């Protein structure tokens, strides 16, 4: 376990030295926190009713409903964030090692495969969980301060909270595993990130489903989603670990 922390410490030192990576990690959550604040503060005067029909917002006044739609739209971005941030870090972390040719000297050390992979996964996962939870909490606080009390309870539902707290780490793990697989085949960070975008398509589908009123993120649906995510995350992590073998990295990675 000690070596996992050594790798983690090195990864964090490297992350802190990469300005572009830091922007990619901190800018999206910052925007997700600022934009709804501006819209809620400046734009939602309730004079224009939203044409979107979201089941969870039924029972609100027109003014509250408009705020609720804005809140619901943005609340889902935090679920997406949990996939975007770790895949960005993982792309830099793994492809960075490849392009710098640091993987071979690293693999030549007496480090075990699980230690190396755990260090890489945690380096991508921990900041993303932190960023997602902190910015999501800021968003909830904004809702509490700048919208009517009714709106908060309609946007921050039990289903959303379950997905936000327990689903986001699993989604992050899925994203990192997919990025590891992509990293074995490509040699530049941008291509890897472009390919990894496909991983968020199912989540965008869920968001669109909710916003179109065809789907409501209830507690039971969030639990089922989590239960599906657990084996998916385990399976993908196992797949990533199969690709992350010394032999495979040195002889089959492109």
């Amino acid at each position: 376990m000690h070596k996992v922390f050594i790798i983690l410490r090195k990864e964090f030192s490297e992350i802190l030295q990469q300005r572009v990576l830091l922007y990619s990690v901190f800018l999206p959550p910052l925007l997700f926190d600022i934009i709804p604040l501006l819209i809620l503060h400046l734009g939602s005067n309730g004079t224009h009713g939203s044409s979107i029909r979201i089941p969870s917002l039924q029972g609100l006044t027109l003014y509250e409903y408009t705020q609720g739609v804005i809140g619901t739209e943005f609340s889902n971005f935090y679920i997406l964030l949990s996939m975007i941030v770790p895949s960005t870090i993982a792309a830099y972390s793994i492809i960075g090692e490849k392009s710098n040719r640091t993987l071979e000297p690293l693999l030549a050390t007496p480090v075990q495969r699980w230690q190396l992979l755990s260090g890489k996964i945690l380096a991508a996962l921990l900041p993303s969980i932190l960023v997602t939870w902190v910015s999501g909490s800021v968003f909830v606080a904004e809702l509490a301060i700048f919208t009517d009390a009714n709106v908060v309870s309609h946007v921050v539902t039990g289903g959303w909270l379950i997905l936000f707290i327990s689903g986001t780490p699993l989604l992050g793990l899925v994203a990192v595993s997919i990025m590891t697989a992509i990293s074995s085949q490509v040699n530049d960070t941008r291509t890897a990130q472009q390919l990894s975008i496909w991983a968020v398509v199912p989540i965008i589908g869920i968001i669109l489903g909710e916003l179109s009123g065809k789907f409501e993120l209830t507690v039971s649906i969030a639990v089922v989603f989590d239960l599906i995510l657990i084996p998916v995350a385990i399976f993908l992590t196992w797949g990533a670990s199969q690709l992350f073998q010394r032999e495979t990295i040195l002889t089959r990675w492109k």
Partner: protein
Amino acid sequence: MNSIETNHLTRSFGKLVAVDDLSLAIPEGTVFGFLGPNGAGKTTTVRMLSALISPTSGSAVIAGYQLGEHNEEIRQSVGILTETPGLYDRLSAWDNLMFFGEMYNLSREKASTQVERYLRLLDLWDRRGDKVGGFSKGMRQKLAIARALLHEPKMIFLDEPTSGLDPETAKVVRDFIKVLRAEGRTIFLTTHNLPEADELCDLIGVFRSRLLRLDTPANLRNSMFGSGTRVRVIGDAARWVKSVRALAFVQQVTASENILTISLPHPDEQNPEVVRKLVSAGADICAVEPASHSLEEVYLELVENEHETVTAG
């Protein structure tokens, strides 16, 4: 005791046999030069011997550990300088080495001591806080060598350690390899620099998918071309070839400009008669010296012969 012992070690990638039936024994404290053209399978061999990839067949014992069974112990016992330095550009020299020191199971205190020792030894101490991305190629190479030595391995693999370095830095690296040899470490040196191999190595293996020859540099030279004498004359040396060839013990004579190269079984005993013959024939002799063939000539002869054999086959 041998640091490396391989028995019929083979590695294939699909139909391509990169390393074929490699059997060799390298005694402790030896500087072993592993020579071969690009694509000969040298890197694959080094990767197998440092427990990075597994052989398709055959066996090996590295630093007393059986390959395949004690790979982690092997990795702990060997140091490796890969073809490219492979350093973290955004981290300082100090942080790079500390990271690898700890990865080689050194405590933070021990790692710190070792990092300081090697940074000072390789004249990088003053740059310890600088990011490696700003280092010259020579400094990066020295740092990578320091990384390979942090855990004080008895066995070190050096892949092209002076490749692309300026002559001054290359000399620093070569001198450092001599220091390592004096400390009794076994060095597995992969290089294309044949004079360097000649200068540093106790044992040479010429390799092209399989081991073509394994011997000391001196034996290699003698066994390929025999011993001989070089005679420098005034004027065209070709005029005297016939006279020298008339001596029964002379094996071969070649002339190039004003130099005669004569292959002799016992130069010390036969040189006086050669000189007498030349003088009596009218040659004006400027100098007589031992004819030595370079390792480069030996290497090219071996590799070209192998190529012709393979092509003919």
